[in-house]
């Protein structure tokens, strides 16, 4: 998101991270949709709304006005890694699959995605699909777009999504030794094959993420112009050339050529870019705004009574934790295990969620998120997430018997993201329970915190968060805790855990794969490379003028399903 907030508080959904405006949330994901139900007769059109109500009676063809922020990057699918641009891309593009509100993938452009070994996929797309400029959506539209996104010289921020594909290493080194990935082959106009370097059974689940959207041929000839005026194949399209008014708004109208499961039930979508959530909340209450993804901190305590049943407060696919690096003195080996568990037992998560966040966080029960298929709140070992002062003291005393603890336990955080209150509350909980020195270690900016983390120069624990790119358990575990993984900032390594991940990735049966990932989490609860804290909630609301508003698994309203009242 990108609007800035003058108080420096973070937008709550989305990452976990950065300064407000520049949250780089990994994902926004597709607009899921309850859309299969939406195939019935309604239908928006992109003409000017006329006076009368539309055919379905009581609904209007006026556009829905939605809260948003100035995209941080040109509107190119492979170069957008934050929510503001992501929600626009999800509206104007259709990928191979889209996600329902519960995160379940449904074929969108894809006719079928088949694999027998979780490593080699044959993807067939529906015939007769077109971009909003009339050019056909073919197998090449996907293959060319993915090759563009992966090629290092194109400097696309989401290039790592293509890492599992064979030939990625050749196109993503500097200088590249190939221009296209050898794992992608166009068979005919509606068929292409994907070969991965190793089995990844949740690869099809990822294909609803914006990095995997197709591009029309015109995009690749002039990507700069395309980034300003993107042409997609989704339920909406830009109202006209120049519809993206920077720092102000972007107006989308219904794309009549879209035939998938997300057909819009309203007359269009006007996304307004707000600098302050407070202003957006005022507009929501006065009827100038239809949907708001997150309420401002000033309204956290009151928004559910302000908005009544138009308030939304549900867990999001955002996992918050703090990581204790493996190399930290006193936190290694058996002594470290005891201390990690003691610290986890010492944190009163429900009280902090209530006092600091007004219950807009949900205390963690695992390492993933409740909105993800395969989530379980009864993984053996997760009792360390309960507050138990006596147990915490006992474990800490056992660790003291091995070696005495000296110094101060610190949690590093970026103070431009509104994290101080919970860090202070958490360290106070640890301090009071264990009787040790514990305090927050503020960094002025997100960039500063990240560079100390990346350089491994940070001394002490540090705030970590993860917003899923796609609704899969694997995405919460492999990138963060697998040995040598890109976001394994604590340098955690456990061969047993790695082996379970590998097994899960090769398992083509979804449920069996989820079982394995739950077992893998049992190991994490023993080792506690990071201390789980809570899941962020999607805390938003909608106005009186709209109905059928549901928030997707990614905490963004499912815009296509919204109906506007006449």
């Amino acid at each position, binding site marked *: 998101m990108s609007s800035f907030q003058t108080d420096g508080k973070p937008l709550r959904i989305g990452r976990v991270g*950065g300064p407000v405006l520049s949250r780089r949330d990994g994902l926004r994901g597709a607009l899921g949709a309850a859309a299969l139900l939406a195939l019935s007769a309604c239908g928006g059109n992109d003409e000017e709304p006329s006076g009368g109500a539309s055919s379905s009676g009581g609904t209007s063809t006026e556009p829905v006005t939605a809260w948003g922020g100035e995209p941080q990057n040109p509107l190119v699918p492979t170069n957008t890694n934050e929510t503001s641009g992501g929600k626009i891309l999800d509206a104007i593009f259709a990928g191979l699959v889209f996600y329902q509100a519960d995160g379940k993938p449904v074929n969108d452009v894809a006719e079928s995605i088949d694999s027998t070994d979780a490593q080699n996929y044959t993807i067939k797309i529906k015939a007769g699909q077109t971009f909003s400029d009339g050019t056909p959506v073919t197998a090449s539209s996907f293959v060319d777009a993915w090759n563009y996104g992966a090629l290092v010289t194109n400097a696309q921020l989401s290039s790592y999504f293509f890492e599992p594909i064979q030939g990625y290493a050749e196109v993503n080194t500097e200088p590249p030794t190939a221009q296209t990935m050898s794992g992608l082959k166009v068979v005919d106009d509606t068929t292409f094959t994907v070969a991965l370097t190793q089995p990844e059974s949740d690869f099809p689940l990822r294909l609803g993420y914006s990095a995997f959207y197709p591009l029309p041929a015109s995009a690749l000839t002039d990507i700069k112009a395309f980034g300003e005026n993107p042409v997609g194949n989704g339920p909406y399209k830009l109202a006209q050339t120049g519809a993206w008014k*920077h720092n102000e708004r972007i107006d989308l109208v219904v794309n009549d050529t879209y035939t998938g499961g997300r057909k819009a039930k309203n007359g269009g979508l006007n996304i307004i870019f707000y*600098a302050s959530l407070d202003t957006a909340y005022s507009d929501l209450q006065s009827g100038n705004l239809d949907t708001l993804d997150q309420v401002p901190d000033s309204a956290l305590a009151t928004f559910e009574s302000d908005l009544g049943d138009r308030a939304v407060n549900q867990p999001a696919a955002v996992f918050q934790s703090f990581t204790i690096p493996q190399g930290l003195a006193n936190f290694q080996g058996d002594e470290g295990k005891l201390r990690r568990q003691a610290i986890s037992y010492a944190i009163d998560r429900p009280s902090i969620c209530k006092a600091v966040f007004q219950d807009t966080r949900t205390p963690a029960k695992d390492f993933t998120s409740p909105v993800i298929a395969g989530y379980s709140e009864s993984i053996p070992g997760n009792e360390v997430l309960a507050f138990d002062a006596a147990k915490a003291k006992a474990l800490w005393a056992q660790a003291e018997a091995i070696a005495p603890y000296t110094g101060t336990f610190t949690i590093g955080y970026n103070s431009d993201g509104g994290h101080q209150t919970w860090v202070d509350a958490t360290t106070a909980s640890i301090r009071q329970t264990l009787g040790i020195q514990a305090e927050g270690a503020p960094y002025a900016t997100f960039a500063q915190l990240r560079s100390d983390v990346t350089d491994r120069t940070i001394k002490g624990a540090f705030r970590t968060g993860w917003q899923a790119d796609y609704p899969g358990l694997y995405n919460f575990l492999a990138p963060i805790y697998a040995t040598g993984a890109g976001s394994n900032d604590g340098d955690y390594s456990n061969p047993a855990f790695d082996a379970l991940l590998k097994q899960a990735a090769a398992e083509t049966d979804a449920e069996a794969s989820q079982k394995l990932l739950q077992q893998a989490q049992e190991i994490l609860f023993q080792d506690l490379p990071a201390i789980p804290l809570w899941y962020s909630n999607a805390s938003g609301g909608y106005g009186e003028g709209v109905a059928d508003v549901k928030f997707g698994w990614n905490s963004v309203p499912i815009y296509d399903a919204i109906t506007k009242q006449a």
Partner: protein
Amino acid sequence: MGFYIGRRLLQMIPVFVGATLLIYAMVFLLPGDPIAALFGDKPVNPGVAAQLRAQYHLDQPFLIQYLLFLKGVFTLDLGNTFSGQPVIDVMARAFPVTIRLTVVAIIVEAVLGIVVGLLAGLRRGGWFDSLSLFASLLVIAVPIFVIGFVARYVFAEKLQWIKASVGPDPTWGQLIIPGIVLGSVSFAYVLRLTRNSVAENLTADHVRTATAKGLTPGRVLSVHVLRNSLIPVVTFLGTDVGGLMAGAVVTEGIFNIPGVGGTLYQAIIRTEGATVVAFVTVLVVIYLVVNLLVDLLYAVLDPRIRYV
């Protein structure tokens, strides 16, 4: 006069170079890696990061970066933001609305401040003076975001005179309330300055002489009291212009006006050197020009001052 202006303009060159060099150095020295931050919590792709560093000249030594920037200033190519937009386009969007907001604020604070200050100064110790003293202290004591939020709540949400979200292309009418909020603190200073200055000038020798000469009270007041009293006020207004433009971040945020303050704040957070330096450079130039105008105004206000 012409010689004086020319000399002042020439003096701006070293100030300009020094200011930009300092700002550039400060942005350069900011800790943290802006390119790594672009990737968020996701792993940094070294190849892509190297491409981006080269694109923004971040792989060059400091002096080369600065010289490239200076070269850009003269070719009107100020570089790109991390989102790939030319900085010059960003400025073209941010400055007009902020300049208009600043104009409204300056008019509000100057007109109201001088009128109220004059009335208070003429009746020093009277009830109006006491009231204005109390009011101005109140405005100075209350933080501007409180004034802003209250104004938005009352005028946008309750009375609905204005929209809570003013947007980037407002009418002058929509800018009045934000302008009053922005100018409120300075209004209090202008009021106090005018009031003290008028009260002091009322007892000055030249005013007594003018009255003794038999001039009408109106002429004494306008030509001999007010004109002289305006010198400190004009000095303050001149320095205030730059502060209002860069410091409107709170007011702009509250009324959702995407202007200079908010853009600059974001750019600093993101360590987006090109944007920060370009914006501050323009602010420095505006500041220099406005202060030259203020100095020239001195000669108009006080006949004893002459520039040669």
